[in-house]
């Protein structure tokens, strides 16, 4: 069985804006960065201009540990685009700091049959043009 990779050859990149720049470029410094409310400490994902918990507006980007747990995943076999390399693992991970922040990602650097719900993972970035895409790999203790 192949190593789990991320889909190559046909990678669609995010459109970077003032609102999401901290997220898609935080990887340049090796950190996963989310918006956080300075009033109540809630982390917002995707980013919005008002804290949904306390309605505060004093929000600022802040790095998280990048450690997470796989909440669910699928082994995708269908090449949705020409050149999309399959199979690969698509997963939803829950961040240690705030499990209701979920990130859809690929699990990389891991044999595909080893991926499990509940598996511990950590962020790893790959640079493409002007963005750093966060992937997750098995946690190194």
């Amino acid at each position, binding site marked *: 069985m192949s190593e789990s990779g*991320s*889909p190559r050859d*046909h*990678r*669609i*990149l*995010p*459109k*970077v*804006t003032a609102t*999401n720049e901290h997220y898609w470029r935080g990887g340049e410094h090796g950190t996963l960065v989310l918006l956080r409310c300075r009033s109540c400490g809630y982390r917002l*994902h*995707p980013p919005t201009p008002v804290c949904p918990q306390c309605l505060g507006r004093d929000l600022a980007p802040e790095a998280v540990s990048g450690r997470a747990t796989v*909440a*669910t*995943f*699928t*082994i*995708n*076999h*269908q090449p*949705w*685009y*020409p050149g*999309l390399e399959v199979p*690969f693992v*698509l*997963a*939803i991970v829950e961040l240690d700091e705030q499990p*209701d922040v*979920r*990130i*859809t*990602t*690929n699990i990389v650097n891991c044999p595909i049959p080893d991926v499990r*719900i509940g598996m511990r993972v950590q962020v790893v970035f790959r640079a493409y043009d002007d963005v750093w*895409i966060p992937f997750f790999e098995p946690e190194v203790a």
Partner: protein
Amino acid sequence: MAGPFQGRVAITGIGQSDVGRRLGRDPLELTLDACLAAIADAGLTPADIDGIATYPGAMDNPPGFSGAGVTDVHDALRLKLNWYYGGIESPGQTGSTINGMMAVATGLASHVLCFRTVFEGSAQGAQGRSAVMTGGAADGGSGGGYRAGGFQQWVLPYGAPSAAPWIAMFAQRHFHEFGTTREQMAQIALNARKNAASNPKAIYGTPLTLDDYLSARMISEPFCLFDCDVPCDGATAVIVSRTDLARSLRKPPIIVESAGTAIRGRPSWDQWDDLTTMSVRDAGLSLWERTHLRPSDVEVAELYDGFSFIAMSWLEALGFCGRGESGPFIEGGHRIALDGELPLNTNGGQLSSGRLHGYGFLHEACVQLWGEGAGRQVLSSGGARPELAVAAAGGGPTASCLLLSCAR
């Protein structure tokens, strides 16, 4: 009479165009075929129609997703409208119909023409699914400089432009928590295929066995090819009328007993609170909050099966079984068969009869309530047609359902 519409709203006619994998026909003509059939079925003429409701409204992208908008039909039939609606941000695809029901209940319109047209089969053409995917050929692909915004930015960089892998992840979590199996989930596809054999408009009417299912190629685990609905061309229309005007029309009115429209979690594919459910959970709950009728009163269920797991999720959401129990509920397929305790997707659903996108379930619920199902008609042991049906549309972060009755 109880319920959100107090008995004031009825379905009085239905219509459907030809349905096929790739008809290669003008989608507006398909739309008008369905609309004129529905108007005639009700015993009305275009001059009687004073409202239009449609999903998703006119849009060119993704290709084949919308065959006609409000103004196309308004102008083609020279209608005189008192109210209209077309849009994509409604609860499920038939949320547009529920908007029409609200217009009738509030007196803004008397007879609302509701429709949905797709031509995704023809739009794919020989290129297959990538032709209609966001970021695919129509957008220039990654080589064409396309960049993803909105929700798509969170999934397209990971090779996931389709709801197949998004919903597969819900199914996987359900399998993990409740021990659900592929053999159980297969029954949604096998039951649909069996029923499709009695639907002359079905895309796939040839028998499907459990072995066929288990040996099919995987799309996104646990979904194989047969867990995914089939893109097609076709249009479906229903007429929503004031009940007091419906009494004199051609057919007995189908009363709208309740509508489920709630979404109380985050409107998202990946931030939804419970990854074993989807927004169908709240749509189903709210349907029953608004009526004195109970799940055990329902005699036939037409539940969205864009992916097989969605129909299982609807079974739980609507209280036909407990949370996490849809696998055992459908095991073996007897309970959901035409002669079972809860006949399901009697026309073959979208899995075997084509992705008419929500409206096909509403159409089939009416077929069953009017006793027009011929070889696929649900009949009681005494030979009577059903009096109460559920039609549900949508999955993921958008869903709605309707409870419909037609007294014998």
